[in-house]
């Protein structure tokens, strides 16, 4: 199967982020992704070199959570693509 070539550009809508496919095969994806804003901020910090554990530590402090719970919370946010909205082309 041919691998599609695309990346994402993130558009800030205020309460949420929308990820829009960009690149050669972008239109073939036929959709945009809505991402929880906190998940996006975490994704960004990880791409900047912060470890998930480090981020979990600051989340634990922010919400007064047990670290194990914070780690699971970070994992769930990273896995969370809240909605795939298919746009009628």
């Amino acid at each position, binding site marked *: 199967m041919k691998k599609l070539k695309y990346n994402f550009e993130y558009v800030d809508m205020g*309460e949420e982020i929308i990820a829009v496919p960009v690149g050669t095969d972008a239109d073939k994806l036929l959709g945009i992704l809505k991402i929880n804003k906190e998940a996006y901020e975490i994704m960004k910090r990880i791409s900047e070199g912060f470890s998930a554990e480090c981020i979990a530590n600051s989340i634990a402090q922010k919400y007064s959570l047990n670290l194990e719970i914070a780690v699971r919370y970070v994992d769930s946010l990273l896995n969370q693509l809240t909605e795939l909205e298919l746009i009628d082309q």
Partner: protein
Amino acid sequence: MRVIKLQIAGQTLSIHANSKRLYNMCRGFISTKDATLSLIVSEEEFENEREEYLNRFGVLPSQIQTEIMVYLRKVADALIAYNTFLIHGASIAICGNAYMFSAKSGTGKTTHILKWLANSPSAYVINGDKSFVKINDDGTVFACGSPWSGKENLCTNTMEPLKSIILMERSENNYIEQITFAEAFPVLLQQVYRPNDEEKMRKTLRLMQQLNGTVSFWRFKCNNFKDDCFETAYNALVREH
């Protein structure tokens, strides 16, 4: 073949018009200024345009149709560098402001703006089908005319401050409501020219984002065959705002 210089969205660009039809379409936009951009269509680009049309619609376009489409794409691609992007939308000017009605083909954009012309003597059409949106450095947003204006050839070589973008859909009754940028974005994205080039597409998205807070967005459920379709839109967009 004629090399002609066109003034679109504040930029002067030169194109090579092979067909009389393309030349005639562009006549209202011909400029004597020096061109900042020279756009030439290669044979490969021409054939790619034909192939894309064939894949989409199942028929080959004529040479003239292809020339018209490929130059629209070239112009739309080129103007992104000048903070200008293309929307599939009919735009009308009234009282110094522009209102852009955007929707899929066949929804009734042109029919609706003709009602504005009939009911408002001071209104005029900026573009009947494909309007350019220019964002200046100071953040002001303008709707701009272009030669690519649909079957009725309704266009004016002008730029007016863009006040509202109205997303139209067909409906039994006429109803209009203001919506947020977040609500408008997924629908609007479908009507915006989306370049294949990744960096140009990213720039287009960033330009779209600048509309947030500057331009108002509306959802217009429209029945052009009912008498209240003009008043419903006009009262909400112009009279009350």
